[in-house]
């Protein structure tokens, strides 16, 4: 659960740029070294837009991928990204910190009223980021019980019936369509209202792009952070000396969040979204032809000895921030600063107010939901 596979490590050592056959019979190039992965993410010759209509791994339904910000290249990507970038800058995120600190306290207060063991997923790691992204976007957070199942469906992986993913997407799109209509009639002070204005007053978005962007922000804004909170706790309980160090030195939390981001694997596959080459490219001394699918394997790149010494050891004091857990280049996680802040405040709250928290179920007996592109825990029972 805590390390990239031995096969991936071996590829990184001996065949860092290699063509492989995937389980579905298609071929892709796997890229496993840090420098090469970073180049794939940053270099415009590795295109996301060219993946639309191709048989490559994707998030969400095939039918909508062309409208998604995740499947665009500059300058189209830049047009959409500029509309939302301002809401997620470090400065704007810092202004949200007091609110997040308060929410962390409230969720922990509530947990103290529950019988033990209590489920951390249901009572903390999921509702916290849901509340934050909902307030930012202007979505009623109490609708979590309505939209969360659709959100899970959209994050389905290739083992799922594609029709199920299409239906989940249609339902969540319908939900956002109604919400957007309500906000058109009664604008709020939120990001969705700003995006509606960009669509209606300035024609900077199509209607499908507007719905797709809201939906992407909602999903990416909570399932990832929720499960990183879970994964961080699992890693810290696997390495109790690191947990003790952090409890004793909470000022190390921002650094620890970077190290835990580098170390923990959020995605089921460990790979980033595939790219397609727009021309022949030489990468790590290997020629990749035009039109080839390329998968940058982020998790193993973060364990490259060329990035940092002793990379398979978790060290909450490691002075390193150039990991690739948020990706890089134009698709670098829009919510990276927000995620960092939420993860810092979540750890600060949990370690500070539940200093004796322990897992009520051994880590190897915990189960992830089936068929998801992120490793999403069903439950995380804890005592404190």
């Amino acid at each position, binding site marked *: 659960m805590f390390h990239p596979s031995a096969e991936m490590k071996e590829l990184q050592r001996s065949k860092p740029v290699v063509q492989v056959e995937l389980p579905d019979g298609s071929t892709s190039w796997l890229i496993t070294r840090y420098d090469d992965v*970073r180049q794939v*993410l*940053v270099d415009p010759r590795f295109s996301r837009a060219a993946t639309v209509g191709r048989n490559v791994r994707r998030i969400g339904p095939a039918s909508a991928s062309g409208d998604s910000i995740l499947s665009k290249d*500059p300058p189209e990507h830049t047009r959409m990204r500029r509309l939302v970038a*301002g809401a997620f800058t470090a400065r704007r995120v810092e202004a949200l910190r007091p609110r997040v600190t308060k929410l962390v306290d409230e969720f922990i207060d509530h947990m103290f009223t529950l019988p033990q063991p209590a489920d951390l997923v249901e009572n903390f790691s999921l509702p916290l980021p849901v509340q934050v992204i909902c307030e930012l976007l202007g979505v009623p957070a109490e609708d979590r019980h309505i939209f969360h199942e659709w959100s899970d469906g959209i994050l389905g992986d290739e083992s799922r019936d594609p029709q199920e993913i299409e239906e989940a997407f249609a339902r969540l799109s319908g939900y956002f369509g109604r919400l957007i209509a309500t906000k058109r009639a009664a604008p709020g002070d939120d990001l969705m209202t700003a995006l509606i204005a960009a669509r209606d007053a300035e024609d900077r978005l199509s209607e499908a792009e507007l719905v797709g962007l809201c939906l992407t922000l909602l999903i990416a804004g909570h399932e990832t952070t929720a499960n990183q909170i879970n994964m961080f706790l699992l890693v810290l309980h696997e390495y109790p000396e690191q947990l003790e160090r952090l409890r004793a030195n909470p000022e190390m939390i921002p650094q620890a969040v970077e190290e835990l981001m580098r170390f923990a694997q959020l995605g089921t596959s460990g790979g980033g979204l595939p790219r397609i080459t727009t021309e022949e490219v030489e990468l790590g001394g290997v020629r990749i032809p035009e039109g080839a699918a390329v998968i940058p394997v982020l998790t193993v790149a973060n364990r490259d000895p060329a990035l940092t010494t002793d990379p398979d050891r978790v060290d909450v004091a490691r002075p390193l*921030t*150039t990991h690739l857990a948020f990706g890089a*280049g*134009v698709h*670098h996680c829009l919510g990276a600063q927000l995620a960092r802040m939420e993860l810092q405040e979540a750890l600060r709250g949990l370690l500070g107010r539940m200093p004796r928290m322990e897992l009520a179920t051994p880590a190897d007996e915990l189960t992830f939901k089936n068929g998801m592109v992120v490793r999403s825990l069903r439950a995380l029972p804890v005592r404190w």
Partner: protein
Amino acid sequence: MATWRVAVSGECVASGSCLGIAPAWFARRDDGQSYPTSVLIEENAAVLDAAACCPVEAIMLSDAETGEPIELA
């Protein structure tokens, strides 16, 4: 056409966003942080996009003559 001064502050978190949006105008140092390939440039839409998309607002654009910051919105 105005001349701009381009600078990248120490706030840079090595997201590589500018390298993807305006590859001719930014490059990466060994420590991962970005730097402008030219400090003085003719006003340029891609550089403006890169500054507007930087997650930590580390790219600072100013009018080379007056020193006035360039509006990003």
